[in-house]
């Protein structure tokens, strides 16, 4: 077991290394550079020379190449040759290993602090939505499986498949249009009304603002959990021990709640472990639509504007969560179901 875990962790480190190389090179290949974009107006106004910018860029880990165009005006661009990017990557990796995630270009704060401070909201939304999913999807899935091909099964399956097919941005915007803009029941975004409410009133205000995003998140992923539960329950229902339970004269309720339900939970544990990235990583599109200042929106802006340290840190964070999630799922499977043996 210990050997298995160590092997998996070493492999995971290798994978993370590969992920970081690909991400860093791609981020550097973006045609925009946050630092340069920030200082260009000053250069155009003549308050700053290209040499000054070069020195500043050096601090940020970039290499500025200066050249003259045909009219003789000085121009500069970021040196995006392989060597320069590689040096930048090496610098980033060295700092990352030592636990220094770097400073965000945009916020001028350590990246890990930004992520830690924005994670709360995202985690809250995802967690509440996950609880709702579990409460609604698992009983429905089991009920569907018990009445396979019945009317209830058909209607529920079709309904939930339809819900899963909705793209997040479409559902989000429809919900905003109908419930926020037309009916006016809920606010259309943001975290609070900006009235400076505190205590219980403030918390209530926040909940009121978060109902729509939570609703959207729940609707979007409830279908797959429901279908997964249904499939597993069907498998369990066909197992021999269920036939035995029925044969020894247990009531149908007892069969379902004591034998089917518990065995259905085994694979579900692994599914829940793999929701880890979603739980902590925030929902990028939903947060952007609802203008919620969570980790997803911050990361989205960072990716679009080329805030490299923040984007790198966020993506590595998600990749790590994915790796941990899959490892956890495999381990949980062995813990919950003693019949499963982990091997190399």
């Amino acid at each position, binding site marked *: 077991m210990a050997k298995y875990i160590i092997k998996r962790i070493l492999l995971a480190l290798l*994978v993370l290394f590969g992920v970081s190389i690909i991400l860093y090179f791609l981020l550097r290949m973006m045609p925009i550079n946050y630092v340069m974009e920030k200082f260009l107006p000053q250069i155009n106004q003549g308050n700053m020379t290209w040499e000054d910018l070069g020195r500043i860029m050096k601090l940020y880990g970039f290499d500025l190449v200066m050249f003259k165009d045909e009219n003789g005006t000085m121009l500069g661009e970021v040196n995006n040759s392989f060597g320069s990017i590689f040096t930048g990557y090496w610098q980033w990796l060295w700092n990352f290993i030592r636990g220094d995630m770097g400073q965000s270009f945009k916020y001028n704060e350590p990246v890990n602090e930004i992520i830690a401070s924005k994670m709360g909201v995202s985690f809250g939304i995802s967690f509440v939505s996950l609880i709702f999913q579990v409460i609604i999807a698992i009983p429905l899935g089991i009920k569907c499986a018990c009445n396979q091909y019945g009317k209830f099964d058909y209607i529920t399956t079709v309904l939930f498949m339809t819900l899963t097919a909705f793209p997040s941005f479409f559902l989000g915007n429809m919900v905003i249009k109908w419930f926020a803009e037309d009916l006016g029941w809920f606010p259309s975004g943001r975290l609070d009304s900006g009235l400076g409410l505190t205590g219980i009133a403030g918390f209530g205000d926040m909940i009121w603002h978060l109902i729509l995003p939570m609703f959207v998140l729940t609707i979007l992923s409830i279908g797959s959990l429901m279908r997964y539960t249904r499939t597993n329950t069907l498998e369990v229902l066909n197992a021999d021990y269920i036939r035995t339970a029925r044969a020894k004269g247990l009531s149908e309720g007892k069969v379902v709640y004591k034998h089917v339900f518990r065995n259905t939970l085994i694979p579900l544990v692994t599914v829940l472990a793999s929701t880890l990235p979603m739980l902590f990583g925030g929902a*990028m599109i939903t947060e952007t639509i609802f203008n919620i200042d969570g980790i997803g929106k911050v990361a989205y802006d960072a990716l679009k504007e080329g805030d490299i340290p923040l984007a790198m840190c966020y993506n590595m964070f998600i990749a790590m969560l994915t790796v941990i999630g899959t490892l956890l799922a495999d381990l949980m499977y062995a813990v919950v179901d003693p019949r499963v043996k982990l091997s190399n």
Partner: protein
Amino acid sequence: MEENKEEINSENVTQGNFNDNLHGENLTERAKVLSPGMTVAKRFFRSKLSVIGLAVLIILFVFSFLGPLFSPWSAAEGTVKDYNSDLIKDTYTVFRVEYVGADGETYEAYDITIDTPDYVILGDINGSHLMGTDSYGYDVFTRLMYGGRVSLTIGFVVILIETLLGVLLGGLAGYFGKWVDQLIMRIVDILSCIPTLPLMLILSVVFTNIFDVSKLYYMMGILCLIGWPGTARLVRGQILSLREQEFMLAAKCSGLSTSKKIFKHLVPNIIPQLIVSMTLGLGSIILTEATLGYLNLGAPLTTATWGNMINLAAQSTYRQYYPNLWLGAGICITLAILAFNFVGDGLRDAFDPKMKR
């Protein structure tokens, strides 16, 4: 297999009995033996959901590929079709007035009214514009058809290339094992560990400076590169179990070349799973394309795609007051994804009734 036999037997009996009484022919001559493909088709069409999915898909395809032929409007380039081009020219109405000024002289004055062409910006829904017109005056309904062409074509091209890549690399990994397997599977691990949406965002920003249609091809390339690891995993897993079976030993004994063994004996055995994963994958590719379109990072904005049309919903004015501009595109995307899911599920059940979900 057992179900298959039963079907044949039951038909044998009913048909045979009937014919026996009439002509006294041999039972086996009258028996209708179903080929595996026919059995799958029969099982597929037995499920209501898959038939509904297939019908929706056919409707969507006819709508997008044949629909524009019957529409008087054009949406691909954003101009009104040629025979309507007289509509787009400005017309002038000149109104001449003569009057006597305060100084006693006679003046001529011209009042020129320029009639802008007959297209309506953000027009209402009416007989000629079934879904109104957008902020450039294009007919939304026609644009929806052209959008479907692009979105569906992207889906099909990407899934084909992606599957080819996946089969090739997954097949190599599964067949050769050892370091080939290790290398390919680590690449697969890495690619599937990178969060998809951020990766797509970065890549689309890398290509932001391309404004013409070639951006579409880059996008397809990116989608293929991201998509193949899933297929490779599937193929590898299947091949690992298949290569231990007797028919592979037979293939080895008859001295077939490696490529023949892989592509003629192993790959045909996983085609059912591949078809299912391709059908289910089509939905997710259409979704990714639409997501990029929504975030303004997909195909160039002048191209009509479902994703580009729905990105209007991000602006609150359009969202609130002109739902006719984006609701249709959203419904089309949802319908396409749903239909591909229905058909995929139906195919899976039809290919492998034991795996029925």
